């Protein structure tokens, strides 16, 4: 992805600035986006996405604040983080620290890890598909909702321990989790059609 490097300080500052910004969700799941939101630079949008994350995660609320926002509000320099390892499709590992309450998709983007996120965390695609490499960690995750399973249906290289990165939220029990980014496969079909070899 064409992601220009943004300083960590810049992101922390923006997160603080946009803490108040909440995105209402209607019953139909339609998000009212602010005018010209597509013009916002990438890093601002990630912060909105994180708030949206929290909204999806705490499904029953129309307005919600994320645990991250609460944690930062305490004003302490030292946020609680967990260790996460991303293994990309070429086998290269990246070890990062993820604040509690942040989604794996957002954490990947903040660390320039190549994880696609076409719908920016709104459960409308499968491009942030990650494979939880150790089944004990997979079992520590809450079961996927129907909406996530519907998207996982379409994910490429789906496995028994696959999840959407935007739905895996950092919590203390996940410290040390390893997530693999699946390799592109040549079986493109979504309708079960198996291409004939040529």
């Amino acid at each position, binding site marked *: 992805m064409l992601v220009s490097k943004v300083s960590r300080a810049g992101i922390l500052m923006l997160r603080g600035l946009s803490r108040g910004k909440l995105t209402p969700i209607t019953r*139909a799941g339609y998000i009212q986006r602010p*005018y010209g939101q597509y013009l916002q630079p990438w890093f601002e949008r990630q912060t909105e996405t994180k708030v949206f994350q929290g909204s999806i995660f705490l499904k029953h609320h129309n307005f919600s604040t994320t645990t991250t926002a609460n944690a930062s509000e305490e004003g302490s320099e030292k946020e609680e983080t967990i260790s996460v390892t991303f293994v990309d499709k070429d086998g290269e590992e990246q070890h990062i620290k993820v604040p509690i309450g942040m989604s794996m998709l957002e954490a990947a983007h903040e660390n320039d890890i190549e994880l*696609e996120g*076409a*719908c920016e965390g709104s459960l409308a695609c499968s491009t942030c598909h990650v494979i939880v490499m150790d089944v004990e960690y997979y079992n520590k995750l809450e079961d996927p909702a129907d909406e996530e399973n519907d998207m996982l249906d379409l994910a490429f290289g789906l496995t028994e321990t696959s999840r959407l990165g935007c739905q895996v939220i950092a919590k203390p029990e996940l410290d040390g989790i390893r997530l693999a980014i699946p390799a592109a496969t040549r079986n493109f079909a*979504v309708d*079960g059609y198996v291409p004939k070899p040529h």
Partner: protein
Amino acid sequence: MAIFQARTWLSRSFSTLSSHPLRVCVVGSGPAGFYTAEKMLKAHQEAEVDIIDRLPTPFGLVRSGVAPDHPETKIVINQFSRVARHDRCSFFGNVTLGSSVSLLELRELYHVVVLAYGAESDRELGIPGEDLVGIHSAREFVWWYNGHPDCKNLDLDLKNTDTAVILGQGNVALDVARILLRPATELATTDIASHALAALEESSIRKVYLVGRRGPVQAACTAKELREVLGIKDLCIHLQEADLPKTPKDEEEIKNNRIQRRVYELLSKAATTGPSHPRSGQRELHFVFFRKPDRFLESDERRGHVSGVHFEKTVLKDVGDGKRIAVGTGQFEDLECGMVLKSIGYKSVPVDGLPFDHQKGVVPNIRGRVLHDTSGDATLLEEGLYVCGWLKRGPTGIIATNLYCAEETVVSISEDLNLLASKASLPKPGREGLLHLLDNRKVKFMQFSAWEKIDSTETRLGSLKNKPRDKLTTWEDLLKVARE
């Protein structure tokens, strides 16, 4: 690992061995075009990528195909906009392959040409009555409600009938059924085209049939769309329990296919929940299986208009290789209706100078490299010419499918460039050449900034009506705003 190393080495090779930048042209600005452009820019740090599209508005089916009540699916436009604004990328709207510039000319101007212009035509049934009034392809209907300028004046009559028959049970068929059956008040706050909203507000259609040739196990839609249509408020769902039982062959088909398994579960749950007795005026959605259209029936009162579909009942027959097809049983049944929407698949359109497989409706290719003809001979390649997206694979898959499709095509391009670089390649005019040609031909191309003007106009108009945008739906309006 090897591919990753090979790719970076290959991309360095071209620019170090040659002293001029790589010039790439991508035809088509939908997901296939944009993912290809993005990956080319990344893989080749010296490359200049030009994306052309015949519409002034980019994004292909993300704008004109994705349903208005699926706004989250359109968020990918943000990523594509970042690509268009990249300093080595330029978008040229209102430039048509074939009339503004020929394929031959593009291949002379650029080192690499990638055709990603999708499928703008329809598969035909080839049965009697197909040209009766009231029969349209789903593609046209979708373009109509999404404000595509080519379908603004589609001759649609939603007031002469209460029943529509949709042939096909894929996601496009479900989209079309949903738009016909959703209360118009729910559609009023989406980016649906205003003329479509007005027509749907006055629509008399209350019953929609979704008809498939095969059974519920073979239904081509996916769980999200099915769940959504089954959950529409005040909509009565009809599904024959008799169509549900699975044969051992069905069980086998489902066993290893998660998508089909979950779709079947949703359909069987809908059947057992059973239709509540519809109140008068309540809308109905009927799933009809094992019916193949034999011919269209013409109305006696309105000559030239469709009044129904004559179906043949089918059974599934094994044709070897684990494949089963629907075959007629000689028993027939009619469904009355005033409108038919054919949702049986899109089809690509060939251009001059482009090898084309008319049977499959795609450009013959191997991993994105265009072949000289349809013989399958992999040694006869069209140098510098590639395909991506539906033009390459056929009209199936989701937006994300193009991510992997583009990856494959870009790897093929990179491998070929490496071979080219070792034989002293020539510089090409690229963007400057295209601008010169378009200028000579008086083609009024539109850059990305023109789309940004259209975008902000649509957003502003939409805010007056509590919609995310109110689309400009005529060529006239689009070109006028673009040139302001």
